[in-house]
């Protein structure tokens, strides 16, 4: 009996301690505020690698609710005035349409289905994903806030390609879209664009190099920052040929020599394509990412964009896209079976 009482007492004390602990912590946190009306925010200094470069290393998410193109009714308004303004605009119906999947086309696979995966089903969408706060109305910057039109000849070539694709889409693996073939996802860039899900990337800096692995189909960019020139222009690459340098605390990366099948923002790029990216660490959690796409043989003028990446815990998982591509064989054998009917 006495023992029981003792254990009850101990339990009770424990509960009181547990309950009161946060209260103590809270009052401690509040006390200095009362004493010093304007507590100085802890000053943030740029972390540096042992070599002295700004330290960009870590796992980041570039998920965003900011659409690539600005909703038309916002005109030249580049920023919402406040979160309230943003919410009000969104609820008025203007901010919808691509807000959750910023870079997704209406019909990404040409099969009449807008949604490939329902990411919310896997806990990959909505509030489960950490995003950098932003009052931007579009990723594309400037008064127009959208990718400029392509040249007429580019439109014509694209139409012909699309018509061929439509007629032959199930002929062979080579007729399927690049993403479905696990060759490129279409968002790894450069410019690196947020994906509908798994917008995760990791940056590692070694001597003379910055390496970025993007989770989606495990595409890795190894960017030399040792002052070397671009490689031979006959070597075209799916992620282009990138070289970087530091301008103050900003990593500037210039990319040329794209594989002619590379698509940036819906348009196949030319051999004149040049993309410039700027990575600037803003604080402990954030990297500002800015890019300019210039391809005078494709678009009527260059365009630029900007978003923030936010630090997340990770890890970056291995995306063995091709190794697990059962869909390719299944789709093609389905097409062959359908033809026999």
């Amino acid at each position, binding site marked *: 009996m006495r023992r029981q009482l003792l254990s009850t007492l101990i339990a009770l004390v424990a509960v009181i301690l547990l309950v009161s602990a946060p209260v103590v912590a809270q009052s401690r946190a509040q006390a200095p505020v009362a004493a010093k009306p304007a507590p100085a925010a802890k000053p943030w200094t740029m972390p540096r690698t*042992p070599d002295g470069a700004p330290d960009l290393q870590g796992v980041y998410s570039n998920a965003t609710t900011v659409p690539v193109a600005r909703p038309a009714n916002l005109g030249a308004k580049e920023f919402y005035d406040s979160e309230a303004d943003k919410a009000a605009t969104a609820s008025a119906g203007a901010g919808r349409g691509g807000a959750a999947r910023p870079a997704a086309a209406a019909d990404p696979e040409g099969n009449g289905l807008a949604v490939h995966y329902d990411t919310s089903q896997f806990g990959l969408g909505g509030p489960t994903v950490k995003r950098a706060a932003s009052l931007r109305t579009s990723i594309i910057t400037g008064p127009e806030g959208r990718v400029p039109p392509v040249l007429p000849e580019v439109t014509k070539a694209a139409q012909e390609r699309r018509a061929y694709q439509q007629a032959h889409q199930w002929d062979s*693996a*080579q007729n399927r879209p690049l993403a479905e073939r696990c060759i490129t996802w279409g968002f790894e860039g450069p410019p690196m664009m947020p994906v509908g899900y798994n917008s995760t990337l*990791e940056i*590692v800096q070694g001597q003379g190099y910055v390496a970025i692995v993007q989770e989606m189909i495990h595409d890795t960019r190894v960017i030399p920052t040792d002052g070397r020139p671009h490689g031979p222009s006959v070597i075209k*690459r799916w992620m282009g040929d990138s070289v970087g340098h530091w301008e103050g605390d900003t990593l500037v990366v210039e990319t040329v020599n794209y594989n002619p099948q590379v698509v940036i923002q819906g348009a196949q790029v030319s051999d004149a394509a040049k993309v410039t990216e700027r990575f600037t660490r803003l604080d402990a959690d954030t990297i500002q990412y800015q890019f300019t796409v210039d391809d005078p043989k494709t678009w009527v003028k260059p365009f630029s964009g900007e978003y923030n990446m936010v630090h997340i815990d990770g890890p970056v998982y291995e995306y063995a896209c*091709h190794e697990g591509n059962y869909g*390719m064989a299944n789709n093609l054998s389905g097409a062959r079976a359908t033809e026999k009917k």
Partner: protein
Amino acid sequence: MRICRLGGWLFAGTAGAALLSLAVIPTAAQAPTAYKAPKTKDGKPNLNGIWQANNEANWDIRPHAAYAGPVYTLGAAYSTPAGLGVVEGGEIPYKPEAAAKQKENFTNRLKLDPEIKCYMGGVPRSTYMPYPFQIVQGTGTIMFVYEYAGAVRVINMGAPTKAPADSWMGWSNGHWEGESLVVDVTSLNDSTWFDRAGNWHSDALHVIERYTAVSPDALQYEATIDDPKVFTRQWKMSMPLYRRLEKNAQILEYKCVEFAEEVLYGHLRKQPLQGKGDSK
């Protein structure tokens, strides 16, 4: 020391010599190399660089004579060159049934070798495939970027973490032991091979790798292989890796999916392919 060891291999043709080399090698491995790599600014051996094996291990990690390749139309261009092997002692200690499966794998290698399908090479095979890889030595992490299939590993150098799931390139926790980078690799799947000869492992594979600079332009690579489902005991492979010294050497793209699509999906084409396989 290295020359002694290579010499040992050269004469390891008989069982007696093999035993002798077994007896000699551990002593050789324990002896500290005189060479010490230059240090990074944070005091670690600097292993940054683009590295590549220059041996026949990807054909067969065991000692082997030259033999004809499986595609006769490729003649001498795709036949197997002889190699001294990289397995210490020369023999892989397979369980009897596992040894039989290797022979089966070899017979059916054109159909089964994951390299033909452009599947990621896994560990340790990615290290000695005939493509370069780059070590990007960060502070909390070290990235290994392989040219073949764009495979990548991010070695965690902090407190060891546990794999979220099995994968092709496994889960790598690393630490420094003196001059060596030691990487503990777990959670590898059972779908990769050791070589084109069908040497294989299960999903119980556990690899401990050691990377040690032995000269400004060479690393010694050792991998201790443990897989109780397939082998009767642990065994070890070792080989030098050489720095790619070309001016502006870099990891290029070998996104090989395109090159493997016909072999994987060609039978599902609407029209049989004309000619030699041009997909355009």
